[in-house]
């Protein structure tokens, strides 16, 4: 897609993937941060990680296995929270531990069987060995995320305000919440190869937190968070390749730096001392 701009295919693929992943994750991040469901990020990323490990164990396609496992976890979060009458965060904690256990169990077992498994690409991402199909899939999920937010903007804003009040107002909260979980699962599973299971959380939470320092309304948060994520990711990819640095951790560090700066500069936090 960006070949007209960048000649090097590897850099081009890395940039495209990072742009799509950062836009999709940061938009979803705005929703989950406001709903106090940030832990969904690491639960989903570890579910995808466990799915990929299961795929390797079974000799299947790791990406497809990651998607399938995250989808299964997404399908469990809502009903388990409802059935067990637990806060969604507690359910996320249980499923996170289960996913991690599955992944560690399978990796240890494969090592014991002498099969050997390099989990580093799943944990830390590997932007230099991406297939074109993966980028197309990420572009599709990015598009799906934008369509979801535009189509259900009214319902999403009601959920972000207060789930109980939204439900009492007659908004179909469960349906929108479940669709949200599936899109998060899909985005996280497809972004696993790029930023890895451990760093995906940064893409989900940090851009939304940066936007939260400056934005007074949800609409501007949905614009600022992906814009910041896009520019920082693009800069991170460029700097990573230019100075031979690991791209994903660099993007994570850059975003964290921007967050620290935004907290210092946030006018929302400023108290007007001239008022008497």
């Amino acid at each position, binding site marked *: 897609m960006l070949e007209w701009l960048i000649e090097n295919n590897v850099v081009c693929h890395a940039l495209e993937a990072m742009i799509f992943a950062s836009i999709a994750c940061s938009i979803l991040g705005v929703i989950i941060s*406001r709903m106090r469901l940030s832990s969904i990020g690491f639960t989903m990323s570890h579910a995808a990680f466990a799915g990929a490990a299961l795929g390797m164990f079974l000799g299947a396609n790791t990406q497809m296995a990651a998607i399938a496992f995250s989808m299964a976890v997404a399908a469990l979060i809502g009903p388990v929270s409802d059935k067990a*009458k637990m806060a969604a965060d507690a359910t996320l904690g249980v499923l996170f531990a289960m996913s991690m256990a599955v992944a560690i169990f399978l990796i240890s077992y494969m090592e014991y069987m002498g099969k050997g498994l390099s989990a580093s690409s799943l944990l830390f991402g590997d932007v230099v060995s991406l297939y074109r199909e993966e980028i197309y899939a990420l572009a599709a999920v990015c598009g799906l995320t934008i369509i979801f937010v535009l*189509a*259900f903007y*009214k*319902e999403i*804003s*009601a959920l*972000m*305000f*207060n789930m*109980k*009040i*939204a*439900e*009492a*107002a*007659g*908004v*179909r909260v469960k*349906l929108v919440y479940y669709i949200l979980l599936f899109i998060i699962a899909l985005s996280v599973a497809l972004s696993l190869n790029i930023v890895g299971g451990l760093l995906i959380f940064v893409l989900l939470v940090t851009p939304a937190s940066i936007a*939260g320092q400056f*934005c*007074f*309304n*949800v609409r501007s*948060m949905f614009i600022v968070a992906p814009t910041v994520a896009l520019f920082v990711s693009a800069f991170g990819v460029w700097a990573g390749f230019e100075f031979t640095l690991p791209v994903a951790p660099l993007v994570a560090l850059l975003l964290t730096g921007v967050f620290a700066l935004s907290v210092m500069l946030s006018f*929302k936090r400023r108290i007007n001392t001239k008022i008497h």
Partner: protein
Amino acid sequence: MSIVELKGIYTAYEGGEKAVIKDLSLRVERGEYVVIGGPNSAGKTTLLESINGLIKITHGSASVCGLNVSSQADEVRRRVGYVIQNFYFDPFTPFTVEQVVMMGRFGRLGLMNRPGRADYDAAQRAISLVGIEDLAHKTIGTCSGGQQQKAMIAHNIAKEPEVMMLDEPFSNLDFVAREYLQGVFKRMVRTGVPILMVAHAFDGLPDIPIHLVVMNQGRISYDRNCRAEEVEGIIRKECGVSENARVADRK
């Protein structure tokens, strides 16, 4: 047919050993002003949440606006306004009062439909009716508790509900705001919208016949019409608190 009709309903929380509401029957007609009183944990909030399907009814039948609450809860909630008892909005909540009031219309609109002119007009009318025009562009988290409570009342008025339920709606409001809003509710009653209000303070009740429901341990112990000035005395009597205690309280 009554607009709210409960027949022998039971409600229990998961894991609870006893039903919170037991064999409760109640009829509410259009244009009634219902005050629900009783001691703490009598089941008053549970009753309201059973009426709009937020809590599952385990036995008995409930119909609201001619709809079965158990099987058509979403549709019931679209038609019933409900001002919840406890809410907290942090100072960084990125919604203005106007947006929050508008959200009251979202359920009626249905999935994916955008608000139109009529919805914006209804929200503006609700804001004017409650008298919070000056707060419309303020973020809800930066409003005081009383202002937030007024915003939530406007949110439910904007919905143009067929039944209005309020759970201690005046807990953060001064007496001026209470009397003003009682006037608003009285006008709603005159247009045929029944008000079901859980309350612990009864000053400022409108001078219209009150349908008083007193609850005790999940059951209704009193269900009759009375005058506004009789409400507190009847509730005290039903709860076993003497009139002398009331006088002492007042002193």
